Structures are given as C-alpha cells and as structure tokens.
C-alpha cells in the first residue's frame, strides 16, 4: 500500500504545481491589466498560425523606431528597455532606449531588430515589441487582416493596439478600429 500513497502525494504536489503555474500566469497578467498604464500603439497586421494556439494576427507597429543623436551603442538582438511616451495625438512612441529599467517610468523590454545609419553620425533603431501576437477566432483572423489593410489604405480610421504596461511587463488588451474593438468591428462589417 505504501507505493501508491507516495504516488498520490506526488500527484497532488504535481497538480498544485501545474494549477499553481496556471494561476500564477493569470494573477501576473491580471495585475498588469488592472494596475498598468494604457498605451495606444498604431498597427498594421498580417495573419499567421500557431499549431497549438490557433490563429493570430501578427501586429506590425507604425512607431517601432527610435533615432539616436550619436552612433548607436546597441546591436541587433540586444535586449534593452524602451521608455514609452505619448505623442500629441495620444499614441505611444519610444522616448528613449536604456540598458536598464528606470523606476517609475513606463518601459518595455524589447529586442533590437535593426540598426540603420541615419547620416550625420546618427542612427535609427527599430525594435521588436513583446506584444505583437493577437490571437483571434480561426475564421476571424483572415477577415481581420483584410479589414485592417483596407482601413489602413483608406486612412479613414486609426487602427491601434491597447497595451497595458506595469513594472516592465505588458499585456496586449485589445486591437481597436477607431473606438470599436477589432472583433466587434469585423462582426459589424461582414
């Protein structure tokens, strides 16, 4: 009888770890959603597929670049903190890139994508934001891609992602077309 008991105790411990890990993900990201500051990032989406998690649209950000005054000290694939500020229209853009996280300032841990020379000893750096996947229903992702592309060309409405930032962590809350969430917008425009 002893062996099964050890196994059952192990199973209970494993169950606690498995469910606890799931719970940890939930609490961690709920905290970011609740306490984080919201930013609107202008986007242009395309739609790929993930074998386990279904369809998602890949968001390309309009303001994913930053120009330095001097030559860039960073290289491709470096991980840095991007301080996020708001422009005159209320959309997010990169205020500065730093090697370490500044306390109290909304910043996102990003990967340097490319570094260009911008002339006169200056550099232009593009980054990869850690919130470029937006998961959608399998029949919606393709429509979303087409819809957003046509809206972006007509320029009738702003398409943007709402992202919560808290302590360097981020949660992509929604993708909006004007004031309407993308999923609802697709339902309204079949």
């Amino acid at each position: 009888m002893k062996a099964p008991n050890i196994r059952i105790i192990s199973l209970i411990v494993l169950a606690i770890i498995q469910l606890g890990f799931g719970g940890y993900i939930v609490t961690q990201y709920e905290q970011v959603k609740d306490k984080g500051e919201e930013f609107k990032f202008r986007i242009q989406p395309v739609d790929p597929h993930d074998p386990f998690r279904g369809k998602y649209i890949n968001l390309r950000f309009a303001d994913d670049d930053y120009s330095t005054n001097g030559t860039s000290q960073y290289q491709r694939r470096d991980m840095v903190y991007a301080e996020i500020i708001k422009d005159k229209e209320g959309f997010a853009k990169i205020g500065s890139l730093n090697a370490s996280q500044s306390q109290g300032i909304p910043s996102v841990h990003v990967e340097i994508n490319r570094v260009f020379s911008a002339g006169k000893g200056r550099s232009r750096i593009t980054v990869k934001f850690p919130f470029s996947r937006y998961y959608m229903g399998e029949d919606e992702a393709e429509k979303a891609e087409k819809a957003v592309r046509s809206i972006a060309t007509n320029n009738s409405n702003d398409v943007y992602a709402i992202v919560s930032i808290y302590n360097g962590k981020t949660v992509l809350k929604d993708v909006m077309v004007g004031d309407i969430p993308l999923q609802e917008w697709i339902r309204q425009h079949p």
Partner: protein
Amino acid sequence: MSKQLLKALPELLEERVISSDIAGNIQAYYRQKAESQPNRLFVIFGILGSLLVGLGIILILAHNWSHLPPVAQLILAFVPPIIGIIVCFYSLQFRNDSDAWKESSAIFLFLGVGACLAMLSQYYHLQEDVADFVFRWMLLVFPLMYIMSSGISAVLYLAGITFLGMSWGLSNDTSWPYWLMFLAALPFYLINQKKNPDTNFQRVLHYLFPLSAFLGTIGILGPISGHITFMVLMALYGCYVLIGRSSWVEKSKSERNGFIIQSSIGMTVILLISSFRDFWDDQYQVKDLIGTSLLDSPALILLFVFGMLFVLVYFFNQKDEVKDDDPIQIMVFPAYAVLFLLAPSAPMIVAILVNILLFALGIIKIREGVRLQHFGTLNYGLVILTALIACRFFDMEMSLILRGMAFVTIGIGFFAGNYVMYRRIKTQQELQHESA
C-alpha cells in the same frame, strides 16, 4: 505458437509422445502466462482514445473562444487539467493495477496541461514562440511518467524535448537545458528496463532515446562547430555500439535494437562523408582546439562526456563478458579519433585509411550476412560497398566506361550474392525436410 501447441496436445497425448502430466503442465504454463500478460489491446485502445480526446481538446481550445466572457474563458482553460488530475487520482487510488487506466489518464493530463497553457497564452496574447510554450509544458508534465508509471508520457516527453533541442539549436539559442531535460527522463528508461523490459513502450524507447540524444547533439553542434561535429557524433555512435551490445539492452527480446541500427547507419554515413580527400583537406580546428578551454567549447565537452561513457560501457561489457561478435564496429570510433588527430599532418593517408576501413566494414557485413543467412545484413554490406564506390566517382578521374562497368559489376554482385544465399537456404531447408 502457444495456440498451435495447445491444439496439438490431444494428438501428442494419444500418440503417447508426452505424458498427461506434461500436457497438464504445458496447459497450466500457458494459462498462467495469458493471465499475467496485460491486455495489450485494451491498453492500446485506452491510450489512443485519450490521445485523440486530448488532442481534440487542444484543437477545440485553439479555435479561440474570445466571444465568451473573460471569466468563462479562464475557467474553460483550467477544466482539462483538473479533469486530468481527478482521473489520474482515481487511477492511482482505485485502478492501480490497470495499465490502461494509468496510461490513459496520464496522457489526458499531459495534453490537458498543454491545452490550459495554450488557452492562457491565447487569452493574454502572450508572445512566447512555440519552443517557449513547449518548454513550459514539458517542465510541468515530466513527473507524470514516474508518478503514473506511464510509458506513453515518456514517449511524448522525449518527442517534446527533442523538438526543443532542435529548435533551440537552429535558432542559435543555447540548448544545454535539453540535456538536463533528457537526463530527467533517463531514470525512467533505466528503471523500466529492469521492471518491464519486454513491453512495447520500452522497445519504442530503445529507439527514441538514442534518436533524441543524436538530434540533441546536432542541436548543440549544428550551427557552430563545423568538422568536429562528425567526431562528436562518431563518439556518440561509438557509445551506441557498446550500449546496444551490452547485457543491459540485450536482455530485452528485440533482436535488433535502436542503438545498433542507428549506430550502424550513422557510422557508415560519417565514414562515407570522411572518405573524400577534400573533407580532410580544408582542415579544421584541431590546432585551434588545443588552445580552447574545455568549457568554452560545447563540442569538446560532449566529446569528453561521450568518450568517458564509451570507456565506462566498454569496461562494463568486459566485466559482463559480453561477446564481441562485431569487433570492427566497436573499433570504428577509436580508429576515427586517431585518424582525426593525424589528419592535419597527413590528409591523403587518412582519406585512404577511411576508405580501407569502410571497405573492410562492407566485406565483414557481407560475410556476417552469409554466415547468419540474414538478407538484411548481406545487403547492408553490399550497400556500403556500392556507396563507397559511388563516392569515389566524385573525386576520381575515371572514364565513363569504367564507371559504367563498375556499376554493372556491383549490380551483378547484388544479384549473385542474394541468389547464392537464397539457393543455400533453400537447399538446407530441403535437406532438413528430407532428414525429418
């Protein structure tokens, strides 16, 4: 076999070939054997059922249920693992003697955890790529094989971590965690070999473990190491040759095991690649390696580990008095190591020696095939020789007529070898028939 024997018992009794006591003993033996054998079909259907249901759940959740209220989505995410935990608990508590229950429930929880993680990363739009996702998943489910004594969990876990090792390697990320995860599954394999050496899962693991270690090695070495990759892989195959022949694996009834088959194919391919003169010409890092610290080079670390393992298993085999039925195969790795060190000073000689080694291997396999009357081994030897000659066409100036004649000769050799052996087996069978 058992059914035929049982059917023949009345006749044997009638003809007084055996006594009634012996007939009774035979019947009792097979009855007991049938009772002690797990109902394999039931286990297989149980596993298949759980596998399909679990995968179905993952697909259904991947559909994305974003139109449901947030709380409902979160609850939905946790339903599969909770059901899995309850069924696992029930299996351990009330069906502990049933492999079908334990395997099925373990597989359900295994996939349920994957479904939960997938749903959560969908809900929060997490950015992790597939490798990050599988890494978390495998970490959360690896104890299942131990807790539930579940062979299918071990098989799926190995598949998962092998995928990780490969994708980390391909994306130039460090793939050392793969080896830690591999070591985490090793005790299950060793324990299972002691407890259930003849189960189907153990046979599958005999193939999967060496395959996974091979792919994991490629994952670490692939993008960075160049020539030394072949040396490290040869060391790995050297270990496989010994492990495959050790009393530890040979205990299981499978005539040929994954270690032997993979090492035979792998060694032949590496030797064929190394049989080109050019391969040894643009040499490589032996000089550079001398100055390299052991810890800086993953290739050197692996070479050291595999080399130690080779020596260790060799001494174990000696202690267990394992019969060296194929000494040349065992010598391939040490010989290759010597050639590898010699190559910078005498590349041409090394290339010729590799050719001789391959030729000898081919001839020995053909001889072994004829001796054991095994068509597979005979043709394997012929394939080695054909490949060797085909490879030489690439770096030798030879007229088309000579090349053509060489191929015709090999073709005739294939036909003649197989035909002679076929005739020989047939004659023996006829002789046996006549004497009977």
